[in-house]
């Protein structure tokens, strides 16, 4: 039993448990203490000093995020001393920060700017230090732009990269006035272990880390009458976009999003969910194929467990960190890339459009997708599968730029031909979703019966724990799948690359007994992706997950193999899963990368 501590905050009595920090105690009585380096998802740093409060009787102020409450503390969060010091701290941060706000991508969305505005910092008495520091902007990465002149050294990015992702592409380097956030040897983000996951971007309070945006390029394409510009949208975009446009967290805006995209002037508005369903067909077949080789053919060259390959941050991570396990990756391209490849082949053929004139745009909850689209492996159609990748945030900006009153829009439906999708595809946006979708199809394929869960909800694999494991016993199989009779199919689901590391280390040490591994690079899966609305935290991710599951429930078809457009494309174009054309267009290879 922990002790109860009695304190007062601004005269209000509060009871808290032992070891509660002042910041959390203040929340209990609705006292807001400003923060910058603090973030719920990562460990406490206590270095920005914005959250300082006065503890009566102590000369020095205490960092509310890092100071545990002690019995009898009398805390003031808005005393003259606190106000004066806090103002100084903000002024200092501004003096080291490139405050050319009107020219900043984060203008209006910057936590430092907001704080400066709240505290009405109207003058800059201090000497502007950032001008003397000769900062360079690193924009070599296709995904992320790092501008040190805007960095306030809060280290949120460093803690994110280390604690949530275990990547450590970013570290704190040098000391004193030269201290900065740096990659190894100050290389470009493009030349180091960065997975482009964008979790740092999601947590950067200023414009120091932002996505590389392709807004102007997409506007240019749309405005060019000679080009046929097609957009695809990922599952998690429709449950995140609303947050940028006036809706509460967890609101589904699929129909309005489609309507807005049409108003923006795209020639066709299609759905990545279509290729998510297709992924299930390909990846499910690949898994069954691998199982057969191992169980029946006793083929020892086949790598198990098989790991999903939809998450480009995960792909780059395994290429850097566990290159010896690349054979374990499914060879399937991600839904985005499958879509792009089919757009410039199948779609072009059916619509009779010269693929050279098709511009393939995607809207993704993800910054790593920008990198993925630029990979040299992604030219299976003879063209670049995806030309431009926009994040959910960039789409929101375009909608605002176009003067669209999003809330008032009439809902519309995706165009057809690669616009149809199922509930199984929608749940790709949440951790565990690919696994659940695959199980819905594979189980039925093998046994001829629906997966034995009420409403097709595979509850045991849902949730937000970082590593989840489960299994399902396969019984009474159809004749063709006899070799699976009585097999207990085991699977593991991880999200956040730190958890991916746990799974990989299990494989490495031979303690992994699962057959199939789903990895999503970002916490919560794509719904918590690096391209999603800011802020993010556990509560927000849970609400977005609920929205995705609701979207699934609302779909008339909820199993990938029943998607009529998927059935049609196999009949008309691809032949069969893992067939020759599939192999050319829908599958890919990986590369070895250095660990620096």
């Amino acid at each position: 039993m922990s002790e109860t501590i009695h304190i007062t905050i601004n005269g209000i009595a509060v009871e808290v448990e032992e070891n509660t920090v002042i910041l959390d105690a203040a929340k209990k009585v609705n006292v807001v203490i400003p923060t910058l380096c603090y973030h719920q998802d990562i460990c406490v740093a206590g270095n920005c000093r914005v959250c300082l409060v006065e503890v009566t009787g102590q000369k020095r102020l205490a960092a509310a995020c890092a100071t545990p409450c002690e019995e009898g503390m009398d805390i003031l969060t808005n005393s003259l001393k606190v106000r004066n010091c806090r103002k100084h701290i903000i002024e200092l941060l501004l003096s080291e920060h490139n405050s050319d706000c009107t020219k900043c991508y984060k203008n209006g969305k910057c936590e430092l700017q907001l704080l400066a505005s709240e505290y009405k910092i109207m003058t800059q008495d201090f000497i502007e230090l950032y001008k003397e520091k000769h900062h360079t902007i690193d924009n070599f990465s296709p995904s992320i732009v790092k501008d040190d002149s805007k960095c306030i050294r809060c280290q949120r990015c460093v803690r994110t990269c280390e604690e949530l992702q275990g990547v450590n592409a970013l570290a704190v380097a040098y000391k004193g006035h030269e201290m900065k956030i740096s990659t190894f040897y100050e290389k470009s983000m493009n030349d180091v272990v960065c997975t482009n996951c964008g979790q740092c971007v999601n947590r950067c309070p200023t414009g120091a880390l932002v996505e590389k945006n392709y807004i102007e390029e997409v506007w240019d394409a749309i405005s060019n009458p000679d080009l046929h510009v097609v957009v695809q949208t990922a599952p998690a975009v429709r449950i995140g976009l609303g947050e940028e446009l006036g809706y509460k967290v967890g609101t589904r805006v699929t129909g309005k999003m489609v309507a807005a995209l049409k108003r923006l002037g795209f020639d066709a508005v299609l759905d990545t969910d279509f290729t998510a369903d297709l992924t299930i067909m390909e990846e499910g077949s690949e898994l069954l194929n691998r199982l057969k080789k191992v169980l029946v053919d006793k083929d020892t060259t086949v790598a198990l467990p098989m790991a999903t390959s939809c998450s480009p941050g995960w792909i780059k991570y395994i290429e850097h960190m566990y290159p010896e396990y690349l054979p374990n990756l499914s060879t399937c391209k991600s839904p985005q890339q499958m879509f792009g490849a089919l757009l410039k082949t199948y779609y072009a053929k059916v619509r009779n459009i010269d693929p050279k004139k098709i511009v393939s745009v995607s809207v993704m909850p993800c910054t790593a997708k920008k990198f993925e689209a630029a990979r040299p492996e992604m030219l299976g159609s003879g063209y670049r599968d995806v030309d431009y990748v926009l994040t959910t945030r960039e789409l929101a900006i375009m909608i605002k730029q176009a003067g669209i009153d999003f809330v008032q829009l009439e809902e519309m439906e995706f165009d057809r031909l690669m616009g149809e999708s199922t509930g199984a595809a929608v749940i790709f946006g949440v951790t565990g979703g690919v696994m659940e979708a695959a199980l819905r199809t594979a189980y039925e394929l093998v046994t001829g019966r629906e997966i034995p869960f009420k409403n097709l909800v595979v509850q045991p694999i849902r949730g937000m724990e970082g590593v989840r494991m489960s299994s399902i016993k396969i019984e009474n199989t159809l004749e063709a799948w006899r070799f699976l009779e009585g097999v207990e199919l085991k699977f593991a689901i991880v999200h956040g690359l730190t958890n991916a590391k746990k799974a990989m280390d299990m494989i490495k040490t031979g303690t992994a007994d699962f057959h199939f591994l789903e990895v999503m690079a970002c916490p919560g899966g794509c719904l918590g992706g690096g391209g999603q609305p800011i802020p993010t935290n556990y509560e927000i991710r849970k609400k977005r997950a609920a929205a995705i599951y609701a979207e699934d429930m609302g779909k008339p078809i909820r199993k990938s193999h029943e998607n009529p457009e998927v059935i049609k494309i196999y009949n008309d174009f691809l032949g069969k899963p893992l067939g020759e054309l599939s192999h050319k267009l829908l599958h890919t290879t990986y590369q070895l990368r250095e660990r620096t």
Partner: protein
Amino acid sequence: MIEQHLLLKRVDFIFVQDTDWEKILQKSIQRPKQELINELISSELKGRGGAGFPTGLKWKLTSEVESDEKYVICNADEGEPGTFKDREILTRVPYKVLTAMAVCGFIVGAKNGIIYLRGEYKFLEKPLNEAINEFSYFCKKINLDFTVKIFMGSGAYICGEETALFESLEGKRGEPRNKPPYPSISGYRKKPTVINNVETLAHTYTIFKYGAKKFYDLGVQYSRGSKLFSISGDTPKPGIYELELGMSLSDFVDEFGDGDTKAVQVGGASGFLVPRKKFHETAIGYQGKLVGISLPTGGSMMLFNSSRSMYNLLDNYLEFFREESCGQCTPCRIGCQQLLAGIKAVKKGERPAPYLNKLLKLSETMQFTAKCGLGQSVANSFASIVENFREEMIY
């Protein structure tokens, strides 16, 4: 004037060579632990690194925490400008420090001791290791399970801050931690840790050898015992002196000044500059009931005569802090840069003289808000120099 001030009195404990350390160690570890702690507490020895935390209490707190693993760390990261006494202790009487560490280990229940030696003193590593070898041999002989090893620093003033030192020992950047928890609960490797300055440990040796009274009888109330002073600057006799605490700065300047002393920096760059007109009302010791100003110090005493520019002095200190700040917290990292840029701007006439007031306010903010002692103490020298020598800052 201040009658309670002692006259300047030289004493000689620390550097007295003695061959008794084996006996002292053996005798001490046969005494009840509580008795040893009481001895230390009644001596009123306070930390000689500069912060002045009561040593007996520190050991007592650590001894009371239950843990399978505890550490004794000797802080030899002597980096404060104007301080060089710890180097001499480790050169001339290392066995006193080692003995003190072992007794401390015995009291608190620690089996491992580490000396964090600053990189600048690399030349000391070899002779010190020889002393450690001899010492370890004896420990084995008397079945005392206690080992000492040296950990070399690599050039970072901030690592003298105890939690930064732990980080450095753990192979990381020397960035101070949030406190609480304090080292007695969670220090090196998150285990209960006693961390003491070299000189503090050497004084405990004196106390264990002669008893608390001999130590207590030196000095004045709240500032008991003797202290090593590192004396440099404009003085005809620079060097290290062991003096009783509580002396007045006037007497000090009479003894060590060159007859033209304009100001004395007490406690290094993180201490205070005392101008001539305040010599008589300033005493050297810990804050207490002394009349007038009482300045604690890690022992750095730098004298400046009338040929010296106090602007240059401050400029030099701020340059030091700007580089030696770890850089993690806002007030220290940016504050040091602003103070330096600010005084330069005033000197060049790019900012009006009243800008100094804004800078004084800023230094006060740093004192209230910085994460560790470095940032908090920049205000000491800044305010004492700017307030006492304002003209020199402007013209």
